[in-house]
């Protein structure tokens, strides 16, 4: 097997941890604007899970093939490589409840039991920050048994004692006769977690991260696994695949940036993609 990488970023570690959660043959779904997740899926496809099937909020297609991450040409991936095409009503009303695919959501707020909020920070009618909305999280967390979360910037902004407005169900939430399964896994930039005891439960810390630091950045008491591990670093081959094959433009870096820094990085990526395309066109 490949050697551990000596040089990797935290974004890359997140992608690698996501990839490791994927089993071969599974159906995996990508939500809107989640390049870390997509990079993780592609990495799984190119390493241990060659038979996974993809679906994405963009395109609403069923794919078994893969392609590199893009800003401008995301539709070319999902529509150009589609094996089957559906519409979003079919996806929501039939495909998701029936196939119960694995999906990684990014909660804006989350409590210890995995209840999440992606609609507002603060009061709904006078929000401190209005967020895009919860998409389908309020729909699928009611029944879905393969919900995973990822949090690119672990902080007390996200991990709170009480979610302002719950738009996704945590462990056991919902009516008593149909308790929600809740999330099964969470990866942040600090560690990996599951919800085995019914609450967020630290199972591994990323290299160089202390439990104390994670607890300090979490707004509720963390459960700690007795056999706490250190997260195995990416292999050199995984990092190479991410950098050279899956995401040569570095789109996976965007999720951990905000404001002006994200915009600057976007400028750079868009120009690189344009240049790469120009080169490709000239080559033809």
């Amino acid at each position, binding site marked *: 097997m490949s050697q551990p990488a000596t040089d990797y970023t935290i974004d890359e570690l997140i992608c690698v941890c996501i990839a490791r959660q994927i089993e071969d043959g599974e159906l995996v779904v990508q939500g809107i604007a989640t390049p870390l997740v997509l990079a993780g899926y592609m990495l799984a496809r190119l390493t241990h899970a060659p038979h996974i099937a993809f679906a994405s909020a963009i395109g609403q297609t069923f794919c078994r093939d893969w392609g590199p991450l893009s800003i401008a040409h995301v539709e070319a991936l999902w529509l150009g490589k589609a094996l089957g095409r559906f519409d979003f009503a079919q996806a929501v009303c039939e495909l998701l409840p029936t196939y119960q695919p694995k999906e990684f959501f990014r909660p804006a707020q989350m409590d210890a039991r995995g209840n999440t909020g992606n609609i507002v920070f603060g009061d709904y009618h006078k929000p401190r920050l209005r967020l895009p909305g919860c998409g389908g999280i309020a729909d699928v967390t009611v029944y879905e048994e393969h919900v995973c979360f990822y949090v690119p910037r672990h902080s007390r902004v996200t991990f709170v004692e009480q979610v302002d407005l719950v738009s996704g169900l945590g462990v056991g939430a*919902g009516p008593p006769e149909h308790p929600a399964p809740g999330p099964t896994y969470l990866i942040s930039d600090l560690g990996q977690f599951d919800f085995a005891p019914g609450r967020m439960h630290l199972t591994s810390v990323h290299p160089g991260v202390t439990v104390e630091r994670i607890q300090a950045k979490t707004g509720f008491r963390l459960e700690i696994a007795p056999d706490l591990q250190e997260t195995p670093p990416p292999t050199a081959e995984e990092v190479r695949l991410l950098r050279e094959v899956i995401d040569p433009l570095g789109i996976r870096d965007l999720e951990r940036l905000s404001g002006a820094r994200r*915009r600057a990085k976007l400028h750079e990526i868009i120009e690189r993609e344009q240049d790469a395309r120009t080169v490709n066109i000239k080559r033809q």
Partner: protein
Amino acid sequence: MDKTQLLDKQTTLTAAAQLVRPGDTLALGGMTLYRRPVAFVRELIRRGTGDLTLLAFTAGYESDLLVGAGLVRQVRTCYFGLEIFGLAPMYSQRAERGEIEIVEETEASIAFGLRATLAGVGFMPGQGWIGTDLLRIRPDVKLVADPYSGRRYVAFPAIKPDVAVIHAPLASRVGDAVLHGNLAVDCQLAMAADTVIITAERVVEKLDEPLDIIGLAVDAVVEVPHGAAPTSCWPDYPLDGAEILRYVEACASGEFDAYLDDFLTSVGPRARPTMFAVKNHEPTGNRLHN
């Protein structure tokens, strides 16, 4: 009257935009930054048709322009944002100031709500929402008991747009349209709305590809090359990320108004001159003569 002419629905962007009236529930096709009816939105902002309820499965660039221009009273969507480009700046601003009404939707409430309208029933039951705070912020949404098991479901209420505007890569003059995927709920919107407007990269006499939208319920077809730009129209053109970024940066600098002026006065893509006068059109139940 020549029947061919009777059934030809091709018209101008100007004439089509007149089909939207102040106060309407306006549904915009496409997804976030893909295949949005941007040229149509430009025409609508020029006309200043306001007091709109904006319905979009997901809302993006085009919707943020409408909201920023002050034409939207109410928003119904499950996601309003610019994907990796971040929050929709004008939507967030107006929502935080309490300047727009929001009817919070999710994927299921829109999908089942449209299916209810199409089936001619008042609701469709879904598993979602129960246990979340959605029911608190949507007090209009009720529960229904399964008469077999007693289990309670959310009764997602029927949703009916007044006008739906869909941008298509290809349409015929009778209104049949090909979307090439990333369908969102466009087929449902085109069936559920009272008035349906198709803007298309190309309008042809006869389609040579399988249609997604049946022309029967379509009221107007407008040829608008590049009519979705800067959003994408696969496979004709990709997302113009530089322009979306220019928008985000303008808003971040408090220069939405200048961006909007520029957007409205840009020559931009224009509709081909109409080949048939609007008065010759007579699709059932549309608003061209009102």
